[in-house]
């Protein structure tokens, strides 16, 4: 029998990696004739004059009737759409950026990140380390770390102010590829990950471990919670001699960027396609 279920997965996995054209090539752009432009311009100019005139009248009357120091509130403001982040208002509409495909052909994976996300560079010379074991874990430095990309929704300045030496800020996604040195995903998570049994002594929850299938690939997922309010979630995927790790931190003491939630991060992780 034809393996239709697996073939559907293969279709999705492979075709989802096909490149898209630049947005400017396909986003609809309404065309107006010159007469329409003139008409619209005239109407806009007239509106501006009316609003300016109304403002002058109001200022004049307000100066006489309102007490000194009172704040004048316009009776009517141009209506602006109320957009739930990550959407933002533009030309009277709520707009969201289209998601971006991130391809890493060298390490054989693709990700889809929301349009307002971007890749950011960790400070030069930094390597991810096991908490509290920085000096005791020489095996975790290069060349065993093969590749690392950090994705964020924060503006550059905000991001820099939150970054510590090695750890991407809360609400970012850290994607690392390591030489797994013969370790399984579980062994890795228990020795080098935030679930390291020698260091997980914080928080009442400890390490919660589960196995998930992400787009046909088995992944070990661990979550470590702390009393202070942060939580580290890591996904470990064995790939030949390599270990692909997707990790993010959430922290109730660090406000997430607008529109970013656990679901956003999980969505990015679960968009991964392995090629």
């Amino acid at each position, binding site marked *: 029998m034809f393996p239709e279920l697996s073939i559907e997965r293969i*279709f999705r996995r492979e*075709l989802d990696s096909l490149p898209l054209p630049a947005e*400017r*090539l*396909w986003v609809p752009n*309404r065309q107006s004739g010159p007469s329409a432009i003139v008409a619209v311009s005239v109407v806009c100019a007239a509106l501006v004059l009316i609003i300016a005139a109304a403002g002058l009248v109001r200022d004049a009357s307000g100066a006489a009737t309102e007490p000194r120091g009172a704040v004048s509130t316009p009776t009517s403001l141009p209506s602006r759409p109320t957009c739930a982040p990550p959407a933002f208002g533009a030309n009277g509409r709520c707009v969201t950026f289209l998601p971006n495909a991130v391809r890493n052909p060298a390490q054989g994976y693709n990700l889809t990140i929301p349009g307002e996300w971007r890749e950011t560079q960790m400070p030069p010379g930094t390597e991810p380390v096991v908490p509290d074991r920085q000096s005791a874990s020489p095996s975790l430095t290069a060349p065993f770390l093969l590749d690392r990309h950090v994705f964020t929704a924060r503006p550059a300045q905000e991001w820099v102010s939150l970054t510590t030496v090695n750890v991407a800020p809360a609400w970012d996604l850290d994607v690392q590829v390591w030489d797994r040195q013969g370790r399984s995903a579980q062994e890795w998570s228990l020795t080098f990950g935030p679930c390291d049994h020698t260091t997980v002594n914080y928080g009442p929850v400890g390490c919660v471990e589960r196995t998930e299938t992400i787009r046909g690939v088995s992944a070990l997922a661990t979550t470590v919670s702390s009393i202070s309010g942060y939580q580290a979630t890591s996904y470990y995927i064995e790939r030949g001699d390599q270990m692909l790790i997707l990790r993010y931190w959430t922290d109730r003491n660090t406000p997430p960027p607008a529109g970013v939630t656990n679901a956003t991060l999980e969505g990015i992780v679960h968009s991964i396609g392995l090629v």
Partner: protein
Amino acid sequence: MATTITTERWEQLYRQEFARVYRALLAVLRDPDRALDALQDAFVSGLRKPPAEDADLAGWLFVVAVRSGRRGLRRPFLRLDHARSLISKDEIDALLDRMEVGRLLDGLTERQRAMVVAQFYLGLDHRDIARHFGVKTGTVSATLAQAKARMRAEVRNVS
């Protein structure tokens, strides 16, 4: 039947479905410019006469675009900022040839490819495919059966 899909809603739906339908068209037409033209023609067709309901828009766009891709229609009244795709037909061909799916589809006719992609990638069932393509369900079943037989043979040849 009167439709309630406004122009704004149509644009929104188009943006939502673009990536999926464009990739499906790439798999069928194997030509980025043709896929883009065809999909934009489908978008304009939808502006003129939108489908009756929001549901299954990807299937509607896909089939209208496949037909447009065959006819080579041009967009007449709504201008889309349009330049040639940055990736060439040869690059897409090479990319598809490296993919398991690309190799499987390569041995099929364009019509077979369209139905296979509609089923396996866009997730349409036989009845939906028949409705969109304007053919009987039996025709879809037969076409897909032939396509699957060819794909099986391709798999056997490779292994």
